[in-house]
Structure formats: C-alpha cells, structure tokens
C-alpha cells in the first residue's frame, strides 16, 4: 500500500527528467523554457518572499477564495436543479435546450455578457465560473437520478413512502454518487475558469494575473513557477475532494 502510494512520484519525476534533458540539449529556446533549476529558484523566491509584488501568497488566496465561492454557488444551484430535472420530465424538457446549449459553449466566451451584468470585479469572475460549474453538476446529478435503482424506488413505494420521503430518502442518496462525480469535475473546472478570468478580466491579485503578467514581460521562469503553483493547487483541491467523496458516498463501486 505505502509502496503503491509512492508511484504518484513517477510522473513528476519523469517530467523533470525530460525537461532537464530538453534544456541540456538546447532543444528549445531557453528564453521560452528555462531550466528546471532556474524555475525552482523562482518558485522558492515567490513562496518565501514577504515583499509585495514578489510574494505569490496573496494571489494563491485570491484564486482559492474565488474558486471555492464559485464552486459552492454552483453546488447550491446545480444540485437542486439537477434533482428536479432528473425527477420531472416536464422540467427536463423545458430546460434541456438551455443546459445543453450553454454546456457546449466555452463559458469564457460569455465574459462580455457576464461583465455586463456583474461588472469587472470578483462578481463577474465568480458568476461565470459558477455558471459553467453548475451546468456540469446539473447534468451529472440528473443522470444520477435517472440511474437511481428502479427497484429501490419500487421497494420504497411498496412500503408506502410518500413523495417527499421518496425524494429525500431514496432518490437523493441514490443520485449522490452522480452528484459527486459532477462536483469532482466541477471543482477542477472552477480552478481553470477562475484562472482564465483572472487573465482576461483585470484584477489585483490572482494566479491568472501573475501568469499573464509574467508572460507579457517575458519573465518566463516566474510564469512557469506560477503555473506549477496553480497545478499543485488543483492537485491538492482534487485530493481533498476525493477524500471527502470516498467518505460520503462510501458505497459506490462496492
């Protein structure tokens, strides 16, 4: 078990090795791909510095905050909507076009619309992210309801469970693995969209802003350091989420 867990190190080590080889052999222009060592130095500097403008912690917290708020909003909107869409054919057919239309569009293409309603502050970034994530949670929760065991529903009906009990005590928990699958995708997507919004809608702090700023002035090691931090952040968030998921819907796949 412990040994298997060490396998997680295989891919980062492989990336570092390939990166180092590429740098040593001068395969790419070092201006656009600095060495791992150079990048690591920058990474340590960004994390260790207390100096405003250098330290990356305010950016990490700003991104994490926006991401978590977006995700929470997406869950609060998406779960109930997915449940009713899965349960009622009428509501499903009424909203099917809306959901599938916006689901196939990149949410980021709708920035102008969201900026129109929510301005250029945190609100529009959070709104566009929550919107895109909610769609994913809606669809997966809905499938969860559709795949709820017909036999369990029948068993509950035979035991004279009323509509409310049937919904809260049978259909909702039976759809929960689907809901969680949707939330797992949504939590990763939230980070992606927040970073993109930070890149394209102005902000003072945010990993997206750090990445685009570094890119624009050719501070390439800093850009990669920020990208690595964003990736690690995503990895941690996902790991925490999977940990929660396993404990909540412990029965899935068993």
């Amino acid at each position, binding site marked *: 078990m412990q040994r298997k867990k060490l396998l997680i190190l295989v891919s980062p080590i492989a990336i570092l090795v390939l990166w180092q080889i590429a740098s040593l052999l001068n395969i790419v222009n070092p201006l656009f791909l600095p060495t791992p060592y150079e990048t690591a130095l920058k990474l340590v500097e960004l994390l260790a510095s207390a100096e405003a403008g250098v330290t990356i912690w305010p950016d990490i917290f700003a991104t994490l905050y926006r991401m978590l708020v977006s995700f929470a909003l997406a869950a609060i909107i998406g779960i109930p909507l997915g449940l009713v869409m899965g349960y009622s054919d009428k509501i499903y057919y009424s909203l099917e076009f809306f959901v599938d239309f916006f689901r196939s569009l990149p949410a980021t293409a709708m920035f102008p619309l969201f900026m129109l309603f929510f301005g250029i502050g945190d609100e529009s970034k959070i709104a566009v992210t929550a919107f895109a994530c909610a769609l994913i949670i809606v669809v997966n929760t809905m499938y969860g309801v559709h795949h709820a065991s017909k036999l369990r529903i029948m068993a509950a009906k035979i*035991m004279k469970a009323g509509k409310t009990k049937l919904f809260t005590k*049978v259909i909702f928990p039976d759809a*929960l693995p689907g809901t969680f699958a949707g939330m797992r995708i949504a939590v990763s997507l939230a980070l992606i969209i927040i970073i993109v919004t930070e890149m394209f809608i102005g902000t003072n702090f945010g990993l997206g802003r750090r990445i685009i700023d570094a890119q624009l002035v050719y501070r390439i090691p800093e850009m990669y350091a920020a990208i690595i931090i964003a990736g690690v952040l995503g990895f941690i968030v996902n790991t925490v989420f999977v940990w929660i998921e396993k404990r909540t819907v412990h029965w899935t796949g068993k």
Partner: protein
Amino acid sequence: MSEIAIEQLSKSFGALKVLDNLNLKVKSGEFITFFGPNGCGKTTLLNILSGMESPTKGSILINGKPPAHSKIGFVFQDYNQSLFPWRTVSGNVEFALEAQNMDSNREAIAENVLKKIHFEEINLLAFRDKYPYELSGGMKQLTAIARALAFDPEVFLLDEPFSALDYTTTLKMEDALLDILGKTEKKETTLFVSHDLDEAIYLADRVVVLSKRPAGIAKIINVDLPRPRKMEMRLGKKFFALRNSVLKAFESGRK
C-alpha cells in the same frame, strides 16, 4: 388475519395476454409457492399483488381491500438493487418504519425484528451496524427479509429471493426463512415465487403450478409434509412423490 382472494384475474398488455383467469383463495397464515415456466407472467402477478399494477379483468382482495390499500412486505430477487446501500442493516430495516411515519421506537422495533433473524450460526443482529456491501449475499437477503417483516405486512411476498445464491446457502436460507416465520408474532401469509422445484415443495403448504403464458393455474398441490420441515424430508418417499406430481403438472402446463 390475512385472507387473499384472487378472482378471475386477467391481465393484458395491449394484445399480449399475460394472465388468464386466475382463481385462488389463500388462507390466513398460509405459505403458498408459485412455480411455473420462465416468462409465464409471475412478475406481472407479483406486480398486481403488490399494488404496482392493476388487473385488466377480475380482482385481488387482501382482507377485502385492493392491494394498493394493503400492507405488502416485498422481498425482491436482486438484493443489491433493492437494499439501500447508504444505510446500515438497522437503517435499512428502520426505513420500513420511517416510510410509514413511525418515528418513535424505531430502533427498538428494528432490533426486535433483527433478533428473530437468528438461526444456527446466522445472527443478523451482530451485523446491525454493517453496510450491505460488507455482507454476504445471504445476509443481504436476510436484511431485505427483516425490512419487509418490520413493515408488519398483511401479505409477505418473495420473488425468487434465493435464486442468486449458491446451493448450500440456498438450503440454509430456506430453513432460516421458515425459522424466522415461526418466530414472528402473527403468522405471516406468505406468497413465494420459486424457480426451484425442491424449494417450492419444501417451503410450501400448497404449491401453485402455473401454466405457460398466458398464465393460468395448471394445478394446486397440497404439501402434506409435517412442520417444522427438516432437511431429511427432502430424501423421503413422500417428497419424491410430491416432486413427481408437481413436475407432471409443470410439464403439462408448459405445453
């Protein structure tokens, strides 16, 4: 006191006739097994008996009421799909009480039912805090049986409950079921669909042999073996003779 009266029961789905003029009276506390060819309409019969579907013609009355207004304890063949995997054994049993808005005493009632599922080395109470996925197939089905009994049903319906289990387990389950029914406060009126000839005879007071679709009753055979039933009875001449007559009725009904 549950008496079931099935009168001139017919069911069609469009042009497809599934049940044809079934007539049967079941006495209170009686154990009936249904035995018939595959696809003969047993599931439809159970769906009507449980109030999930209504007959095209004729009627089923349970103590004078239609099934939809009666309390049915249903045990499905597929325990994995019928138990609530997010609830423990006790939680599953308590659902039968929650569903009817019985909010007090739930734990005590569930415990009382679980205590009855105690036969030889089987002791379901010891597993009360386990989740279904932590149990063997047999224990899962016993949980489903406990849930149905906790519902305090007027009729206890079982749809091939042991057919997914291996032979040794099935034999044990059959004895366990009879043992549990012997311990219940009231004698449950039980309808049990079986696709196993020995099982149909071993459990029953009467075996109802169904004919192929549209299903009618080919023959009703009284099982005059003494109770409690014992494993050795399966080897006796009487059992053999019963087996022959059920099989004969089955063969003639299959044609």
